[in-house]
């Protein structure tokens, strides 16, 4: 399912003394099957953009197209359920949304709201649990007895069980340990690869964006300031740094290395593996000459 935002503006508390523009003139295309990373500092408006992706917010200007639904300003939006079922959002600290008595009930809550039968929902719950790396014995436990990391995974399972076509992730690994972080990110990546799930990752980690995304959008002060493939975005790392943005560690390392040895590698490498290969061939080439 394609999603597109064209010239979207959103003002919080419009027409009050507290009015504040959160985003303006944001145009983003998310074709079906894309893995897009949305990057920006806190307050750059990325969370506001995210809430437009399944019509939780209605733009004050511009058009949001979700599949064949159009969401415009100043119109009544009825029956948004189909939209919300197709676009699943994993909010930041999703464990805060748990409320049921048992893990199973909480996971099937979403799907059942969208009219899935209980039996089918239970089946999905088991599958979703497997995806997030938890065992079935957890199903009967109270979500409030779990550890923080487990709660996070259960909450994510709750969204996966809705079987959305697009999944939106808002800093899904914030506060997790490095291992848990990698597991979760890899899990989303494999879902994206295997099922062609469109994925939108809101993050401020350039590392994650460089590693997983095939499109990157950078936001600053409510506006899109740069968009393109990771290669395009990071081809000019100096420019990024001038804008006060981070570049992945690999890129930083490459820049420093180039400066030290006084030669350029010809292109920017985005993963440690590629860079080490390039450096290795440079070194062996250097030895040979």
């Amino acid at each position, binding site marked *: 399912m394609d999603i597109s935002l064209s010239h979207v503006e959103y003002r919080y508390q419009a027409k009050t003394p*507290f009015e504040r523009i959160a985003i303006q003139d944001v145009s983003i295309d998310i074709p079906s099957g894309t893995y897009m990373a949305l990057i920006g500092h806190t307050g750059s408006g990325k969370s506001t953009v995210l809430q437009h992706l399944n019509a939780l917010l209605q733009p004050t200007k511009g058009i949001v197209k979700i599949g064949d639904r159009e969401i415009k300003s100043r119109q009544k939006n009825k029956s948004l359920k189909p939209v919300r079922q197709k676009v699943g*959002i994993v909010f930041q600290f999703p464990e805060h*949304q748990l*409320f049921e008595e048992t893990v199973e009930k909480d996971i099937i809550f979403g799907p059942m709201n969208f009219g899935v039968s209980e039996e089918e929902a239970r089946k999905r719950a088991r599958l979703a649990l497997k995806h997030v790396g938890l065992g079935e014995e957890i199903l009967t436990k109270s979500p409030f007895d779990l550890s923080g990391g487990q709660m996070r995974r259960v909450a994510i399972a709750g969204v996966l069980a*809705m079987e959305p076509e697009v999944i939106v992730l808002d800093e899904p690994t914030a506060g997790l340990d490095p291992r848990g972080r990698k597991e979760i990110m890899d899990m989303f990546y494999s879902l994206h690869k295997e099922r062609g799930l469109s994925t939108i990752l809101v993050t401020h980690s350039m590392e994650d964006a460089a590693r997983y995304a095939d499109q990157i959008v950078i936001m600053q002060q409510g506006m899109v300031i740069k968009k393109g493939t990771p290669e395009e975005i990071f081809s000019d790392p100096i420019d990024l740094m001038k804008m006060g943005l981070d570049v992945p560690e690999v890129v930083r390392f490459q820049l420093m290395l180039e400066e030290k040895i006084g030669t350029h590698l010809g292109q920017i490498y985005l993963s440690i593996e590629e860079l080490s290969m390039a450096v290795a061939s440079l070194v062996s080439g250097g030895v040979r000459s």
Partner: protein
Amino acid sequence: MMENMLFGRYVPAESLLHRMDPRSKLLIIFFFVCIIFIANNGITYAFIAIYTFIMLTMSRIPARFLYKGLKPVIWLVIFTFLLQLFFTQQGTLLYRLGPVKIYEEGLKQGLFISLRFLFLILMTSLLTLTTTPIEITDGLESLLNPLKKVRFPVHEMALMMSIALRFIPTLMEETDKIMKAQMARGVEFSSGPLKERIKAVVPLLIPLFVSAFKRAEELAVAMEARGYRGGEGRTKYRQLSWKTADSLQLLVLIALTVLLMLFRS
């Protein structure tokens, strides 16, 4: 949806009322609420109206904003007016339509009471519009200080109040966040049959309570870690200062009281 609750919220501006000591503002409001009941005829109500109008202008709060804040309560004012209008049966009969009778006294009472109501709302909201919650609690604590003699826990009450006020926006934000998370999971809060909507409150309230308790615990630990041990000998960062303007404002109010006493019938 939480964003529209503007009534009685502090609006920063540069005005005499904003700069006044919260204690004098609290006293003024307290006395105003008392003396408004002295007014009982056209002239005295006109005095009150002029006073309220001057105070509103002095606050430099945009009229559009005041109107927006009043909108939800205006129905209550109209309702009181109608109640008085139809159920007071004194004075001369003005109008009659079937069983509906409108008397002169009813019209008068309805007008006065709804006006009184309106002025009360305007003035009390003026207090919260021009004074930060923290100033109000500081002012209250200082005004209630004499009660310490009778072992009334003034400091604790003020602390509870300021904590409560401090966390209203936080809780609102949290409510908004959880609502959105549950909406993304297919809960409909604002449409659908009533029964469903009542049921929809559960996935909102439980997470809200859980996080409120967690937050309370964290706050308590953080306060203890920073050496908080009650109000005994505690000094204030914000010092209240009573200025000439404060005394003048009180004098104006006393003058108004005298005028009301003289002209009431």
